[in-house]
């Protein structure tokens, strides 16, 4: 196929690309899927939630500003501090960096969009709807009130009988869909969707950080999702999981929560560190010192952060040696963090720093975050932690880490990238006043909390007697909080003034060398009119004329072909071009799918279970419609990209981004499954009330046959794929039919086992066993749906020797299901056999 005609002028190219990539005005905006729009939406929505969280913080400070305060009662106070933590962690911090990542990454990577625009849009709607559920509950006085980490038994039904805890468990799980979808999208995009020539050593440092963060989300979030599901099942259906009287253990919740919760701190910090690593070199006027050391440090922090979770549980009675393992890991993580800080300081020292507003906020970050890090090392030491556990000292520490490590860098980032977002320059130097108000207010608020903590003030108390002598410290803390709030209000005013009245800025006002500054400002929907070929990790510095060349269509894909949304996928390591990625355009499907998903979650919350089932069916049905986009009935073959190179489209390539997306989703899935198995072993070893009164003995034959069916389905999936690759689509259909039958048989067998299994409300053994069975059952059901999809694709001519992507994805799923099924059923049988023996357990 010949290269399409190039537009006569850059303006014509701009108009054609805008027509293809842009969303329609009015209601059409709800169909937008491009990353610039979604990134902006995430950022603005997260900032609105930040405002809500900030107002809640002011209410907290108003309540404890003085002793014997009658501002709010304990019930409302519990809701306020719980929602403050929940909103800030789940509805502000995570979505805010997701927004920045979604907005910036494709531009930094020199590409037109992320790999899965519709998944990004779906994630945004899930975030908005899930967050709205929480805010609605707050407005109705039914917000969560058991603290942002929802410890059982406080959050269990007997002690939280209302809907409050359910709102947290269901609302947050809904929101976490957006975190997982963003993680997969970001991970696949960084690895595969970059400008040709952008090898790993030429990647912008922010992309390295986000690569680490995306993997952390995929491994760190599933334990919390599992914990939330199990606790909700216990609350709604009475299953025994965390109840010590029935073989459960509230410590299981703490483990599941903090396996998520501690990496979460670094999941929030690392994107901010990526922004710091991006901005400091620009402000210093030199390259980042020790690029590869910083990459090493980011990877090290990412891994080590998974070895710290028990340091939140130092006071629960774990043996000294176990505490020492986690104490050691907690100290170790300070080393790579220190490497980054010294790299940043070294960059500043060896450059000629400009002291402007972003730089001011970075200085504030250094000061506050280092203080937070030092108190972090203090609480990593077990004897000290036991003294200050659950006091305001810990509240001060976590705010120094999170506000210092995230909010200050985000403020720096906001001032740094606002000219890119708005196309305008700031006015009146209000940023300086914003900085000093926030900096002084923050330290006044939280430094004093170290002192109230050391004086013994517990966190989360709604009032205290005058005789304790905490009054003046708390009053000053509250005054500091209000000063900080005035600073943030001024920040909003500054942005509004800049957007409305700021003078227009030119391209690259900071003289940066990352590629996001090679796009027009404010950016267009398509980002780059043509895609750059990268030859250096300082491409923009070495070729300052690059923005003009790209706008003129002198890069790759500098044309509008068949109304396609095209970009290029590359080799993960070398950045050599491999595929043309055909992206979906504007569509209401993500919104529709999120509404269907919302129906499921709201029905669960209201305990209208038939409607919840309808929500699941509807969600699957709408997802099914998503598959229409890449489906084709004929091979396109290799197509030109503009420099004489011919590339296949992704649906006709070996390992397309969607295949990798499933690989990474299965990584998250495996993390959830591993947590479930951990739960069974943990309860067996640690929980009181074991061995259980009844074990699963009478289903061994069914379980073995189910394992054989799952293994058979995996084998049949391979045969079907092999047949399709030979062009024998008829045989692929035949094998696929057997595959569907194997999954259907597994479903029946597992249902039969479940009906005869011990009562899951009687003992935690039965509860976790049933949960494992349901996990395998759900996977077999999805396997069946995938088989039906392949059947439809084959019948409609969407499968050929070149177009076998659906079968490749199916094979991945069937393989995983077989492995997980054999492990899960094997574990159930093994534990039953061990418990059944006299003296075991």
């Amino acid at each position, binding site marked *: 196929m010949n290269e399409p005609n190039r537009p006569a002028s850059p303006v014509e190219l701009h108009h054609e690309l805008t027509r293809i990539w842009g969303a329609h005005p009015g209601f059409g905006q709800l169909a937008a899927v491009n990353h610039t729009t979604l990134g902006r939406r995430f950022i603005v929505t997260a900032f609105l939630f930040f405002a809500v969280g900030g107002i809640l913080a002011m209410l907290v400070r108003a309540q404890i500003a003085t002793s014997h305060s009658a501002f709010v009662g304990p019930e409302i106070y519990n809701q306020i501090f719980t929602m403050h933590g929940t909103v800030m962690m789940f509805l502000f911090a995570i979505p805010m960096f997701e927004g920045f990542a979604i907005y910036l990454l494709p531009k930094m990577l020199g590409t037109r969009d992320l790999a899965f625009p519709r998944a990004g849009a779906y994630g945004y709607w899930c975030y908005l709807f899930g967050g709205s559920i929480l805010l609605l509950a707050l407005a109705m006085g039914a917000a969560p009130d058991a603290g942002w980490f929802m410890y059982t038994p406080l959050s269990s039904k007997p002690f939280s009988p209302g809907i409050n805890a359910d709102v947290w468990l269901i609302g947050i799980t809904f929101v976490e869909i957006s975190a997982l979808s963003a993680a997969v999208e970001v991970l696949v995009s960084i690895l595969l969707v970059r400008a040709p020539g952008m*090898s*790993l*050593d030429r990647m912008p440092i922010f992309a390295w950080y986000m690569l680490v963060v995306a993997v952390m989300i995929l491994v760190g979030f599933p334990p919390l999702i599992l914990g939330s599901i199990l606790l909700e099942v216990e609350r709604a259906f009475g299953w025994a999981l965390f109840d010590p009287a029935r073989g459960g253990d509230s410590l299981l919740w703490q483990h599941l929560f903090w396996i998520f919760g501690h990496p979460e701190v670094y999941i929030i910090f690392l994107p901010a560190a990526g922004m710091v690593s991006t901005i400091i070199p620009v402000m210093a006027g030199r390259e980042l010192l020790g690029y*590869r050391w910083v*990459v*090493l440090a980011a*990877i*090290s922090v990412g*891994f*080590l952060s*998974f*070895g710290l979770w*028990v340091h939140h549980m130092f006071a629960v009675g774990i*043996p*000294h*040696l*176990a*505490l*020492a*393992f986690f*104490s*050691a*890991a907690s100290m*170790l993580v300070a080393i*790579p963090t220190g490497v980054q800080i010294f790299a940043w300081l070294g960059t500043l020292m060896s450059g000629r720093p400009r002291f402007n507003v972003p730089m001011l906020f970075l200085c504030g970050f250094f000061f506050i975050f280092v203080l937070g890090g030092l108190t972090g090392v203090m609480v990593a030491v077990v004897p000290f932690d036991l003294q200050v556990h659950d006091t305001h000292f810990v509240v001060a520490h976590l705010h120094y880490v999170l506000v210092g490590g995230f909010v200050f860098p985000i403020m720096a980032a906001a001032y740094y990238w606002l000219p890119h977002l708005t196309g305008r320059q700031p006015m009146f130097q209000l940023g300086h006043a914003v900085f000093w108000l926030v900096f002084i207010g923050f330290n006044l608020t939280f430094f004093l909390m170290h002192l109230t903590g050391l004086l013994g003030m517990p966190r989360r108390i709604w009032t205290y007697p005058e005789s304790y002598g905490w009054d003046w410290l708390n009053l000053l803390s509250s005054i500091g909080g209000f000063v900080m709030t005035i600073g943030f209000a001024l920040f909003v005013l500054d942005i509004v003034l800049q957007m409305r009245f700021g003078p227009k800025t030119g391209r690259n006002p900071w003289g940066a060398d990352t590629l996001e500054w090679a796009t027009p400002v404010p950016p267009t929907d398509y980002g780059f009119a043509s895609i750059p070929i990268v030859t250096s990790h300082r491409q923009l510095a070495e070729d300052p004329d690059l923005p003009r060349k790209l706008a003129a269509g002198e890069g790759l894909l500098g044309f509008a072909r068949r109304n396609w949304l095209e970009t290029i996928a590359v*080799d*993960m*390591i*070398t950045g050599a071009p491999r595929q043309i990625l055909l992206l979906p355009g504007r569509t209401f499907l993500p919104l529709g799918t999120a509404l269907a998903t919302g129906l499921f979650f709201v029905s669960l919350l209201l305990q209208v279970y038939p409607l919840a089932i309808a929500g699941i069916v509807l969600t699957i049905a709408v997802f099914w419609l998503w598959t229409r986009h890449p489906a084709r009935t004929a091979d396109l073959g290799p197509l030109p990209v503009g420099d004489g190179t011919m590339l296949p489209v992704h649906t006709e390539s070996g390992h397309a981004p969607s295949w990798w997306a499933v690989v990474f989703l299965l990584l998250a899935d495996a993390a959830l499954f591993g947590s479930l198995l951990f739960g069974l*072993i943990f309860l067996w*070893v*640690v929980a009181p009330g074991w061995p259980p009164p009844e074990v699963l003995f009478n289903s061994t034959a069914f379980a073995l046959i189910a394992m054989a069916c799952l293994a058979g389905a995996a084998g049949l999936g391979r045969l079907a794929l092999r047949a399709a690759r030979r062009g024998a689509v008829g045989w692929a259909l035949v094998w696929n039919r057997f595959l569907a039958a194997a999954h259907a048989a597994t479903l029946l067998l597992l249902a039969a086992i479940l009906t005869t299994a011990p009562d899951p409300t009687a003992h935690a053994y039965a509860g976790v066993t049933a949960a494992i069975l349901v996990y395998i059952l759900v996977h077999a059901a999805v396997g069946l749906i995938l088989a039906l999809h392949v059947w439809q694709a084959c019948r409609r001519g969407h499968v050929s020797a070149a177009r076998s992507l659906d079968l490749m994805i199916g094979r991945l799923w069937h393989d995983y299901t077989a492995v997980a099924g054999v492990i899960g059923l094997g574990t159930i049988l093994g534990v039953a056999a061990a418990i059944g023996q006299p003296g075991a357990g």
Partner: protein
Amino acid sequence: MTLAIRPAFLLVIALGYTLWGGALVVLYGVLSLGCVFGWEEVMLGPLTLQRGLLLLLWLLSVLVIALLSWQTCAWLQAARAGRPTPLARFTLWLAAACSIAAAGATLFMGLPILGASACI
């Protein structure tokens, strides 16, 4: 020797720390099981069964990750002897550095086995 840097090499970069994570889980798990099943009361010469097992697993973990570090350093040295591309130099260095850091982390993390009380 020249080593082709393929996408699977990303797994080598992550392998050292993955083994570190595995070692942490295994040590914590064995400690918990040992405390439940009374391994701290069973003496094996100067050591309890519990501590002996933990020492063995810890040293084994350190050894395995150290071997990985040695191998990745050998790849890096071999590449440096030729004319490696900046990309090859970067990825090989990163794999070696991650492995060495993971080995150091495993060594440090297990030091308390030498002294801390196991089941109290």
